[in-house]
């Protein structure tokens, strides 16, 4: 039971971080379908930092350096979206898809080349970070508290405040609702959209490293992040683009994901003999049904996905 709570919380942390990332980008008016790819890049950055830092480094330094590297990787990678979608008015769905493909391919090529350069016989795509992983975990009885859980909560509160209580956040959201109107009162729509995309890169990259350190201590990069970026998009939509509801949705989705891992250890669930795939499918099915009932008056930013052109009316 403790394990179920622990898994739920850590998966919910991943999902809420990445979903908040999507939330910032979409509120500024850019659909970020490349979250999956941004997660992969953040995971790559974080994993490289963790595997390079000596195990004797103080835990605080490990945590900070890992987070910073993941964030930097995510932000740098998200510029690909900003550049194409904001400056060149490219199709955002297409660019997102390309970014997802590129992230997996590039990280695989990079990690393999790195492994081979160290040992010519090593053709794996795996990065191991077992030595520094304990820095993130504090054992409280049988419960493994992960610092990332705290970071996810901080990100949630910060996102709420930034979006609803600051001038920046309100302006950002205006650019996703009616960019022409925002422009007419002197807001630089391009700058605001860039801000939205870069913040989504930051949170997406962070989510990536949280995901790959959640259960394991090494990662094979040829599998990407197994659809978590897309699941986070579902969380964002399910949460109607609002931080508070995103937190609830992340907990629900995280709970089902956790169930699929630990249900065999819970006797009455195990006795029902439901295959783990059912638990994995659950979040997708629920969100599809909920979407079918709520999309008519959707809370989606009105101008999302439409490139902003100063000249158009």
């Amino acid at each position, binding site marked *: 039971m403790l394990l179920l709570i622990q898994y739920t919380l850590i998966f919910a942390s991943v999902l809420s971080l990445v979903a908040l990332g999507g939330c910032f980008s979409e509120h500024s008016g850019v659909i970020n*379908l490349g979250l999956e790819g941004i997660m992969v890049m953040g995971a790559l950055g974080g994993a490289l930092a963790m595997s390079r830092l000596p195990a004797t480094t103080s835990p605080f330094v490990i945590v900070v350096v890992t987070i910073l590297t993941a964030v930097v990787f995510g932000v740098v990678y998200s510029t*690909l979206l900003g550049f*194409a979608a904001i400056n*060149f*008015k*490219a*199709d955002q*769905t*297409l*660019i997102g*898809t*390309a*970014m*997802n*493909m*590129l992230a*997996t*391919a*590039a990280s*695989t*090529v990079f990690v*393999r*080349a790195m492994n*081979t350069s160290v040992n*010519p016989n090593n*053709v794996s*795509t795996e990065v191991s970070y077992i030595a520094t992983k304990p820095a993130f975990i504090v054992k409280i009885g049988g419960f493994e508290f992960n610092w990332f859980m705290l970071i996810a909560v901080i990100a949630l509160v910060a996102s709420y405040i930034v979006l609803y209580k600051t001038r920046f956040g309100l302006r950002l959201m205006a650019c996703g609702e009616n960019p022409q109107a925002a422009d007419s009162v002197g807001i630089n729509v391009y700058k605001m959209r860039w801000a939205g995309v870069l913040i989504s890169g930051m949170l997406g990259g962070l989510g990536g490293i949280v995901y790959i350190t959640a259960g394991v201590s090494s990662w094979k990069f*040829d*599998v*990407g992040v*197994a*659809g978590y970026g*897309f*699941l986070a*998009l*579902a969380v964002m*939509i399910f949460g109607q683009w609002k931080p508070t509801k995103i937190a609830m949705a992340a907990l629900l989705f995280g709970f089902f994901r956790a169930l699929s891992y630990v249900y065999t250890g819970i006797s009455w669930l195990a006795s029902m003999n439901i*295959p783990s*795939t059912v638990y*994995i*499918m659950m979040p*997708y*099915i629920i*969100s*599809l049904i909920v*979407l*079918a*009932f709520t*999309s*008519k008056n*959707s809370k989606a930013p009105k101008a999302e996905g439409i490139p902003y052109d100063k000249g158009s009316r």
Partner: protein
Amino acid sequence: MNEKTGFFRKPAVQSLLGSLISILIGLLIGFVVLLLINPAGAGAAIRTILLNFMTKSSGPALMKALGNTLVKTSPLLMCALSVCFCYKVGLFNIGAAGQYEAGAGVALYCALGLHLNWFVCLVAGMLAGALLGAISGALKAYRSVNEVISGIMLNWITLYLVNTILTAPGIKDPTSPYTLTLSTTNPSAIIPSFGLSALFANNKTVTIAIPLAVLIAVAIWVILTKTKFGYELRATGFNKDAAKYAGMREKKNIIITLAIGGGLAGLGAGFLFLSGYMQWSVTQTSVPGMGFNGIAATFLGGLHPIGTIFSSFFIQNITDGGSLIDKAVYPSQISDLISAIIIYTCGFAAFFRQMMNAFIAKKADKNEPNANAVAEEGGKK
């Protein structure tokens, strides 16, 4: 000079040039990455990736390798057509991947579980894809759920559903995570070759699926551009409300479009899995790349059904070429990297066309003050 500017103004020429530039950028970056990994063999490696089957020494081996590439090109082409068809109607069918999964699942279930013959399996797979597409379409038409979102959800739901269905005894090989081979379980489910395999050094997986896929591409082009039905669909894509005002049933059109798109992707899966080339792995936990590669092929093909034939072959060709390079030195995923960069640069196609037109206009202005008048005259001739 006038004729030349006219040539470069043609949209078809511009999208072809755009695609070629995308390919060049992709190959260039791929080459630089190869150089960074190991400069010694980079030239040979990029050559292998590009030439793929042509690097085989003997004639029969070459034809066999070409056959293998073609076998995998046909499902890719079908997925690309699926995306292309829907895009022309203003719908982004990211759900092609899921429709492909559904087609594979149902086709294999009919073949291995129900022991039906190839034609029935193929049609069943197509209908499964179409059904999934229609669900996305109905959600969009009646419940305003964005087709990209429902497509993504259905991709994952279908993946796990298909994995579960194909795990049944008699379908899955008890000793491996793969489904049983068609040749041992039910040879009648293999798409016939009608002598085609003889052309490819007896490559048994070469079937009529390959020419069929090309024919379907031509048919899609004809339907979209030469028929009233295609016109109505495209009109719906341009402006839903105007189409409705003009007496077209826009809701029905959305559902039909995604159903056709789904059918194409489902058929593509049938083409691959019923050729006996490969088996479905029931332990896969990521959506197969075929649907996403289809998006790449669509845009590289300039969103034209005929262009898609060539772009699908090109993408499959470099993917297979990637598996032939010296794997002790270079990762085969370098091809995926090149494909991904190509599709990323395809996003700049509209910008590229704009640049080109601006450049031509500027040049015309500079060289001949009255170029516009001459060009107009030329146009009248």
